[in-house]
């Protein structure tokens, strides 16, 4: 068997694939956070809870309504996204323009309520979601086994991330979003309904989190705390990429997943801290993050 730095190639690639899958989730979640932060200037601490809600929507839909995986992939983001819009319209809007701290506290409180409520209803142990039939099994690539579902997660996440990037950077609607991020007052003076734009943006960011939740359901246990564990790393990813940078969130998310995977191979003890180490180093040399504009 081929060895690289004394590590079998199959092991190395296996860990890199696991890293890439984690990275895909980091990218989807940090992308949503970046879009929300860009326009609303709110650090959305409820993001992990909404990701969890996306996974639970898929699970409960399957158990009680017969909604299959593929329908859940569309319906769960729509339902959770609609909830997000209601949260923006009725809660976040009331504190718009106040200090950042209020948004942080409000969304953190929401996260605690959602997670607490789900623990009360479903317990902490979590349930498993069956892998869709179409993606069961996998391919033997010769040097490693590639599970079909995991390959799908990476492809689906990448497609959604880059479609979002394209929409924001290359379309008319995206130019409203970018301009609204810079100067919402002037956008109002051009006749653009900025409050509506804000509601839709929050809804879209939340829908991305729910989409990630559905993708995650068949590979991670669906439990009320699944989002809380992930969110801390995702915040580090956003800081490394640069607050509010779209491409920064995607690239950094994937890169941090890969770095974690590599660390698991070479120095497993540091795997759960390496992202924070990178964050410290990046902040020392580029305080605005890798892709952020210097303020």
């Amino acid at each position, binding site marked *: 068997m081929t060895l690289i730095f004394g590590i079998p190639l199959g092991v190395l690639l296996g860990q890199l694939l696991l890293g890439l899958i984690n990275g895909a989730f980091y990218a989807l979640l940090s992308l949503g956070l970046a879009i929300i932060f860009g326009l609303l200037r709110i650090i959305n601490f409820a993001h992990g809870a909404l990701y969890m809600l996306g996974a639970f929507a898929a699970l409960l839909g399957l158990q009680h309504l017969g909604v299959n995986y593929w329908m859940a992939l569309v319906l769960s983001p729509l339902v959770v996204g609609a909830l997000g819009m209601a949260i923006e319209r009725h809660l976040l809007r009331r504190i718009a323009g106040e200090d950042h701290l209020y948004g942080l506290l409000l969304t953190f409180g929401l996260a605690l309520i959602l997670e607490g409520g789900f623990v009360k209803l479903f317990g902490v142990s979590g349930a498993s979601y069956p892998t869709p039939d179409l993606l069961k099994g996998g391919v033997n690539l010769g040097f490693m086994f590639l599970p079909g579902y995991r390959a799908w997660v990476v492809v689906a996440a990448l497609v959604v991330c880059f479609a979002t990037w394209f929409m924001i950077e290359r379309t008319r609607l995206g130019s409203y979003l*970018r*301009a609204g991020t810079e100067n919402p007052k002037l956008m109002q003076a051009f*006749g653009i309904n900025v409050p509506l734009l804000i509601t839709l943006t929050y809804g879209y960011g939340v829908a991305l989190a729910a989409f990630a939740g559905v993708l995650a359901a068949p590979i991670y246990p669906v439990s009320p705390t699944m989002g809380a564990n992930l969110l801390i790393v995702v915040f580090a990813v956003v800081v490394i990429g640069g607050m509010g940078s779209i491409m920064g969130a995607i690239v950094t998310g994937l890169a941090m997943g890969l770095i974690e995977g590599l660390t698991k191979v070479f120095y497993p003890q540091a795997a759960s801290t390496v992202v924070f180490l990178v964050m410290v180093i990046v902040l020392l040399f580029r305080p605005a993050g890798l892709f952020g504009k210097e303020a």
Partner: protein
Amino acid sequence: MTSLHTNPDFEQLRISDLHAFYGESHILHGIDMRVRRGELVTLLGRNGAGRTTTLRAIMNLVGRRTGSIMINGNETIGSAAHLIPRLGVGYCPEERGIFASLNVEENLLLPPTVRSGGMSLDEIYAMFPNLYERRFSQGTRLSGGEQQMLAMARILRTGANLLLLDEITEGLAPVIVQKLGEVLLKLKDKGLTIVLVEQNFRFAAPLADRHYLMEHGQIVEEISAAQLPAKKELLNACLGV
């Protein structure tokens, strides 16, 4: 409606007893002004006289406002900010408001069309050839003059027929100021109504039909173009030119 709009005496903008506030501070103290269709009217005065605030109050960008603002025959004092441009108002702010995250063409295409009859992109590029050459540059990489052209051009595309222009010549080279003067005359020929906040009196005087002189958040004098020579003294005293 159509006959009203073609009637030259149609009041496109009528402001009565307008008060505006930023937080606790009371900035405008009962402004009354009216602008007829096709007129070019200036707001003259020193810095801090309330001219910029008047334009911002028309756009509902101030903290609070009371009184009456009729635009194209519609009362707007209770309207949300994003509904006011849709009555046909184009606003060019003092700081120009060019978006750094958008290129020149995206900046141009940003404001939604509010009425039919706006200029096409081709017509705009014909009027401002510099903008065509730099259409893929980042908006804020343009020179000050080019940014000002862009800020003007942007609202011409929307079909707005009432333009509120704030200090468009500020800090620009004389040759560009001259070019802006030509543009304003062309827009006037097209029948657009223009309210111009201007510090540069020599630029504004030959273009305008009427002038409103502001001091301490009030209009202290209304001067027609014909009365201008007789009021030189007053203007010198008030503007310090």
